[in-house]
């Protein structure tokens, strides 16, 4: 390379960096501002209840059996005939998850035959003791309105309690394309039957309500804007919400 060329290239490189202060930022002011979380996000588990308040867990121990980290402990018991806890014969009598071991793989969610265990969107938590990390049934079962219980060491943000049905409800987990777009999920206390993603059943359904659906495009769009091709920023960026909207007041 000739010296003159090298000299020019030298400044071209500086130009790439030098124009960035005048471009929109791609970072957010965490923790005041948080990026929206996708529907399929794996967060802290919850144990769901049916719309009538009955617990979904039947104590079958499938979740404990499939967990690759072996962090679930379940013991089932027969339902008391006068005050049944779950609609079936048995219910989850003891239910514990050790979150020091959990890898949030969601195998338990897939295995559960009654959709009892799912994951919320909350992942910002810090325990101060091992005891706190072992969640018992009382902490995992949703409250009387169907919202996850918020423990003192957990940092819940508005919206984290939504979409607790995890990603299984969104698309058919069993791989049958024909069943896509149909909710394969029983109703939940406080939420009813949550809608399913359209999947292949409606290819035009690109703009889903969840704010995260635009997050990728927003990031990519900022990357585009950063190099001065504003015109080509993908649609949906201008009106992408900065923060997820607070849907439901659930601070007790």
């Amino acid at each position, binding site marked *: *390379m000739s010296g003159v060329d090298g000299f020019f*290239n*030298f400044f*071209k*490189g500086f130009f*790439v*960096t030098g124009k960035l202060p005048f471009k929109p930022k791609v970072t957010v002011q965490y923790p005041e501002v948080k*990026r929206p979380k*996708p*529907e*399929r*996000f*794996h967060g802290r588990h919850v144990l769901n209840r049916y719309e009538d308040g009955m617990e979904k867990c039947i104590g*079958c121990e499938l979740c404990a*059996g*499939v967990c*690759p980290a072996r962090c679930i402990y379940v013991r089932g018991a027969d339902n008391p005939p006068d005050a049944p806890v779950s609609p079936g014969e048995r219910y989850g009598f003891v239910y514990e998850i050790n979150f020091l071991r959990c890898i*949030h*793989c*969601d*195998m338990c969610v*897939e295995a559960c*035959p009654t*959709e009892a265990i799912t994951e919320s969107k909350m992942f910002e938590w810090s325990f101060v003791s091992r005891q706190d990390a072992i969640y018992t049934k009382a902490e995992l079962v949703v409250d009387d309105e169907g919202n996850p219980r918020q423990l003192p060491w957990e940092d819940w943000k508005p919206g984290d309690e939504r979409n607790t049905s*995890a*990603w*299984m409800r*969104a*698309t*058919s*987990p*069993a*791989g*049958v*394309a024909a*069943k896509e777009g*149909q909710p*394969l999920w029983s109703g939940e206390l406080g939420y009813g039957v949550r809608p399913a*993603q*359209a*999947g*292949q059943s409606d*290819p035009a*359904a*690109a*703009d*889903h309500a969840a704010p995260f*659906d635009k*997050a*990728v*495009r927003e*990031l*990519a*769009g900022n*990357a*585009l804007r950063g*190099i001065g091709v504003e015109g080509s920023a*993908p*649609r*949906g960026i201008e009106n992408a919400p900065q923060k997820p909207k607070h849907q439901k007041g659930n601070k007790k």
Partner: protein
Amino acid sequence: MSTTDTSNTGTGDPAPDEPKRGSLADRLLGRTVPGGPQLTSMLQHKTSEGAQELLARARTQAAELRREGGVLRLPEGAALDPEDIDIDVPSDETMILNIGPSHPSTHGVLRLMVELDGETILRSKPVIGYLHTGMEKTAEELMYHQGSTNVTRMDYLSPFFNELAFSLSVEKLLGVEVPPRATWIRMLMCELNRVSSHFLWMATNGSDIGAINMLVYGWREREILLAFFEKVTGLRMNHNYIRPGGVAADLPDGWRDDVAAICEAIPKRMDEYDNLLTGQPILQQRLQGVGALDAQTALDLGCTGPLLRGSGVAWDARRDTPYLAYDEVDFDVIVGSEGDCWDRFAVRINEIRESIRICQQILDRMPEGDFRVQDKKVTPPPRSRIDESMEALIHHFKLYTEGFKVPVGEAYVPVESARGELGCYIVSDGTSRPYRCHVRAPSFANLQSFSTMARGGFIADAIVLVSTIDPVLGDVDR
């Protein structure tokens, strides 16, 4: 009789027939007293392979070096001989320097021992194992349908490739054919993963050679891809998405727009990085001619991936042993000529462009249909069927408690990961857990080329070398 300065008795002359023992300092450092016994440093850690440390040159005679050569995987007959290197090195003026294991430029917990003469590297030895967590052993404990939660953690920068290699091997044993949509989803995720992995490499490589702002840009670009992975799989790393039988879920709504946005943004960014990095005289001087590895040596050392292609060997498993549907898409295999760091840099940068090209074709050609095999023995029945049919419920229970049984046999399927040939070798004894699960990790094989490349180079170049080998220590140690 004179008193030797190595005597630690201090009370008189040692008996002439008693072996000289050396002082405490000698024993600590393993210095051998002339005429005394061979001393091993008390500070050395011993392994079954012998000491991890570089031994004093006086003690590493040709035979010993050749033995060590086995450990270091140096090509036959190239046992390190300092006289090879064209400088005058009195052995007591060299310095042994430890780089790592906690050094920002070793990309994880890699420890490099180098013997230096001034700034020139005479010998070097990568010491690995600091991240060894016995994952291959863990794989024997997990059922096949749990297996991808484990293998995905090996090469944590390209998790989809690990899952893919594992799944393809299990499917080969099972003899199942995954539906086309699953194949194309797998291809899409893997190519995007290659892009994200190469971006992280650009980031760390940039920071290693002084282009610190590249570190930030690389992470920024990778974030676009991770946001997409997060949307598809629910996790940013360690996805557990590609599984034996297909993928865990269909692509989410809006994936076409996302992939289109990625395919639009990244090539433009790449042009920018050509200005920022490729055209820079400083960067060129830093990379060109450094750590050249000729094609034959690269093959001898078992290198694969960008390292091998940089040396001029056009070997790409995607093209040469087609898996998934790579024979249906159009892409170029990027090959270098000199095998120096500059070639490896160029190979990776252009591979990002090729991967984006593949993604664009996938976007146009993604087939519709099932994303998992409809085999009740391998994949769970549709969730709504659980409520409808007792048979489906039984299959669901059996699958999640016992897993699926895999016929006796062994299978090895290589895939082209971002780092090279990644293969999973599985031996099945007919149960629902692998009898043995070995992963042929590209980082491990590629790292062996370090000693060969670093010999006679500068210490500052060692950092660049590690960077362009691009090892992931989770992949090396497993």
